[in-house]
């Protein structure tokens, strides 16, 4: 069937988006809608001495002006981090208090202090300007390294020296010993630049309180509405779960930043109760820069040792991770279990030790952003391998090949057990597609035009579908990481899939329907995918960490198993055949080897008519499943970037970008390619364009697109995409996941290429024209001096 697994089917959801009929949160207006504006701290660090709300309250259209003391007074709880990570000495992480509205101290520019509710948005904003807050400014610190130093400004009494935890993974002594005895040792420093996620749809929330029912409804831009409801209920005490409906309608991109429950949703829900109405807030882009959780921001040093045959004997990493002013929901897991566990890369390394110290600073919280920890790991290992090859005078390809893991399963010293892969396969495919061997001629041709060409690769591995629940629970996770699905077959044979996954661009309405098509041979138009509404869908975990394929679709597959089994029983009964002989294909239910056949809809109708069912069988055809994976999945790939640098200005053009990935089984190649394209653009953004910069006073200098450089069409090439396949053995569909690979694998390939072009390996991200120009000139000056 042409719409099943592996088919390049165009998307069912597109029609509403291309005609302007998508329904995003800000498109919705409730009856008697009121609007919220937040008064935010203009200071990076200050004590709140007083808040005067009177003038604001008296302004036209203002319904109420509410502050943090009222919020905490009403029992609204502090915002929590949902993953406990202990320091290596066993001390629990030092979580500072984070109230949705600050009560005593503000700790970053943009920290919410007061919520104003008014009849119009302009009235709310004007009244917000009339709130008078007296602050006592305190010294601020924005760099994690500086925040750890003696005498640094202190953010939270719970966290002396601003340290949240000092964590380690792997065995230190054997690693030190291996490196001490190594024939070659290479050391390197790294900065992984801070990024702002920037989904194009800004965050938005509409909270509506029904006083009669004591019930709340929240429309919000969430990647995981059920998790949001759970947290809002259990930790923030907004309302019990059964009195709170959370709906994430069409959501315009997330990239991690919409996983978390932010202060604004909490405050809007609470304000809807206080004002007995419906309160709407939509972020503008400046607020998004100031308050959406940022990503990355690591400073690391690494040391790698090789034996005389260039086999890696040990890797030692020391990382300081900036978590911002408060601990966001998964902030503790991102620089630990999602980062250091991937430091083995595609390589067989017997000894690895990593130390990660997480730190408070006067900046917006940092949490998972597309890739979440794995881009930091792949940048470190792939830059380190490349640098080692350059320093040791060996081909970077050979050095990688010598150290590839070739036998599976492979247990790394940092928790992960790689289940399958074929690293040589995507390496050789990518080298062929990129004409790696022909680079010398292309360099010479570029030189004749006064340009510098360079080529670089990265061989990444990452982990998706984080699981199983019991294992992540033992590592500190506050949730299980399974997924749920329900398959509801209607009496006429059409099907509804209710999924705990959430689509905000990933095309679930199409790919999930393809599973049904593959199973029963029904057209995907006969399938409706329902998600994002806690009133409609059973509890689910949502979409992040490239989990909707490996985990979400596996749950659907399991529910389909049950539906199929029951349908076969009914069909066998109706056709007086053996259940084992029933085959369902092309929308028909057949008895194999005979001409006996029923239409799929006839079997479904029979299930609901219940006039003639097998003895003891319940009527109906609806099955649910919860799927908890047995292991992570391990997508891997080889990315090759070729650049051309203008030495006069440092401008770098990517002339070719080749990505060959092993995502296991692919449901819809068109959608998978789209995910890779988007990930690559964000990786290129990190490598060359994007940087969230605070000045020393904690003011965000890059708070609009005038200063934060978003990748645009003319910054990017068309991409060359390829796939190799080793099916994932741990889930029923063989899927590994594809959502983040592009952002994980690309930055090191790009920096490896640019440094190859300019002949200077010392280049930090983002490699802006200015930095490339300066690095090139430093290299040529050095060369001239020699």
């Amino acid at each position, binding site marked *: 069937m042409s719409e099943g697994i592996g088919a390049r089917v165009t998307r069912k959801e597109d029609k509403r988006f291309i005609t302007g009929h998508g329904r995003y949160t800000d498109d919705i207006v409730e009856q008697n809608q009121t609007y919220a504006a937040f008064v935010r701290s203009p200071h990076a660090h200050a004590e709140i001495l007083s808040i005067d709300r009177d003038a604001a309250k008296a302004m036209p259209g203002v319904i109420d002006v509410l502050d943090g003391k009222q919020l905490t007074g009403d029992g609204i709880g502090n915002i929590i981090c949902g993953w406990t990570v202990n320091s290596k000495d066993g001390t629990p992480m030092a979580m500072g208090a984070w109230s949705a509205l600050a009560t005593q101290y503000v700790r970053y520019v943009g920290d919410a202090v007061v919520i104003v509710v008014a009849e119009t948005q302009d009235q709310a904003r004007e009244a917000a300007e009339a709130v008078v807050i007296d602050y006592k400014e305190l010294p601020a610190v924005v760099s994690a390294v500086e925040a750890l130093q003696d005498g640094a400004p202190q953010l939270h009494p719970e966290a002396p020296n601003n340290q949240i935890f000092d964590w380690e993974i792997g065995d230190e002594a054997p690693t030190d010993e291996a490196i001490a005895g190594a024939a070659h040792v290479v050391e390197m420093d790294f900065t992984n630049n801070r990024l702002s996620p920037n989904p194009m749809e800004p965050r938005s929330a509409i909270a509506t309180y029904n006083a009669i029912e004591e019930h709340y409804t929240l429309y919000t831009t969430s990647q995981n509405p059920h998790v949001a409801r759970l947290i809002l209920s259990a930790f923030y005490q907004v309302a019990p779960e059964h009195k709170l409906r959370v709906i994430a309608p069409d959501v315009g991109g997330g990239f991690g930043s919409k996983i978390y429950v932010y202060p604004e949703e909490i405050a809007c829900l609470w304000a809807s109760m206080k004002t007995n109405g419906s309160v709407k807030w939509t972020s503008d882009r400046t607020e998004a820069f100031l308050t959406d959780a940022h990503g990355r921001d690591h400073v690391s040093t690494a040391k790698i040792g090789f034996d005389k045959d260039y086999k890696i004997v040990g890797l030692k990493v020391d990382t300081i991770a900036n978590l911002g002013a408060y601990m966001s929901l998964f902030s503790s897991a991102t620089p630990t279990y999602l980062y250091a566990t991937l430091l083995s890369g595609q390589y067989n390394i017997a000894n690895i030790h990593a130390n990660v110290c997480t730190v408070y600073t006067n900046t917006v919280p940092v949490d998972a952003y597309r890739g979440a920890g794995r881009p930091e790991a792949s940048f470190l290992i792939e830059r380190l391998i490349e640098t080692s090859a350059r320093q040791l005078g060996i081909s970077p390809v050979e050095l990688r090949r010598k150290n590839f893991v070739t036998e599976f399963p492979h247990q790394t010293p940092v928790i992960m057990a790689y289940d399958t892969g074929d690293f040589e396969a995507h390496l050789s495919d990518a080298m062929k597609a990129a004409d790696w061997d022909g680079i010398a001629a292309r360099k010479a041709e570029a030189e004749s035009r006064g340009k510098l060409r360079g080529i670089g690769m990265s061989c990444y591995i990452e982990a998706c579908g984080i699981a199983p629940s019991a294992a992540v629970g033992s590592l500190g996770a506050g949730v299980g990481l399974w997924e749920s699905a329900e398959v509801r077959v209607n009496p006429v044979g059409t099907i509804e899939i209710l999924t705990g996954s959430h689509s905000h661009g990933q095309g679930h309405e199409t790919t999930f329907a393809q599973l049904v098509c593959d199973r029963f041979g029904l057209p995907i138009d006969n399938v409706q995918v329902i998600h994002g509404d806690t009133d409609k869908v059973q509890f689910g975990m949502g979409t992040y960490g490239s989990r909707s394929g490996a985990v979400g679709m596996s749950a659907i597959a399991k529910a389909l198993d049950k539906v199929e089994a029951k349908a076969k029983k009914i069909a066998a009964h109706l056709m007086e055949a053996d259940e084992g002989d029933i085959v369902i294909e092309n929308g028909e239910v057949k008895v194999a080897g005979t001409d006996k056949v029923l239409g799929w809809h006839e079997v479904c109708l029979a299930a609901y008519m219940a006039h003639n069912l097998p003895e003891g069988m319940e009527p109906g055809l609806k099955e649910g499943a919860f799927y908890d994976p047995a292991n992570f999945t391990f997508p891997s790939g080889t990315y090759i970037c070729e650049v051309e640098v203008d030495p006069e*200005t440092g401008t770098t053009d990517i002339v070719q970008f080749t990505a060959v990935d092993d995502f296991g089984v692919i449901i819809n190649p068109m959608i998978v390619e789209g995910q890779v394209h988007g990930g690559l653009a964000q990786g290129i953004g990190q490598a060359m*364009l994007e940087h969230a910069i605070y000045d020393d006073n904690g003011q965000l200098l*890059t708070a609009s697109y005038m200063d934060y450089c978003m990748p645009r069409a003319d910054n990017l090439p068309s991409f060359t995409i390829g796939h190799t396949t080793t099916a994932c053995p741990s889930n029923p569909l063989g899927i590994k996941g594809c959502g983040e690979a592009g952002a994980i694998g690309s930055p090191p390939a790009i920096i490896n290429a640019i440094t190859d072009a300019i002949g200077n390996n010392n280049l930090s991200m983002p490699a*802006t024209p*200015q930095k490339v120009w300066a690095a090139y000139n430093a290299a040529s000056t050095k060369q001239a001096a020699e």
Partner: protein
Amino acid sequence: MYETKYHKAGSLDNATSLMGSADDGKYLGGGMTLIPTMKQRLAAPSDLVDLGGIADLQGISTDGSTLTIGAGVTHAEVAGSSDVQGAIPALAALASHIGDPHVRNCGTLGGSIANNDPAADYPAAVLALGATIKTNSREITAGDFFNGMFETSLSDDEIIVSVSFPIPEKAGYAKFPNPASRYAMAGVFAASTSDGPRVAVTGAGQDGVYREDAMEAALSADWSPAAASGVDVSADDLMSDIHGTSDYRANLVKVMAGRAVEAAG
């Protein structure tokens, strides 16, 4: 945006009288800078007097030695005008790279130079070509018009009517855009005019657009890209920010100057 009162002026006299009766009014050209500034609540004019309906501000004409462009002509119209392309192709090329297509459909020549953003493109052309700015009350030479960042010699109620550009023998413009905003980080307009070579730089100087005298001297001796880019440019008076240090901008000025001369031919 704060409250404001909008007026659409039908004529220059109508516009000045509307402005005269406003508390703290501002003229609205294409709005490409003013409206975003108001949206961010950084400007709060009591009144906006829209110049978009004034016929006197429209039109492009040439008399063989001078090209005159109405202040209300959009960047897209300048870029697409065969008169401009024929008389001063560098000016059409410059206009075709201001902002993005949507900005070019709204933004106007008059609005751009009245705002005198230090990173705007038009001021470089106006200054390098020695253009004359005609207002509703007088004519101002380019050299007297720009007074440092965001400052011009216009009085508050004065309206630019048109800009007359002497047609040069040849001219070229090269811009290095800020990677984020796409405004000029260094934009150089080089012209070979009857008064000799004139070179103006935008985007780099701390005081906005300026003439690069040393380059003009070098080009009068030898009109070549190498002569322009070979001039030493001091970083002292250049801007320095997160996108580029003054040293880097000094380098860009040299490189863009060479490319502008190359484009001029």
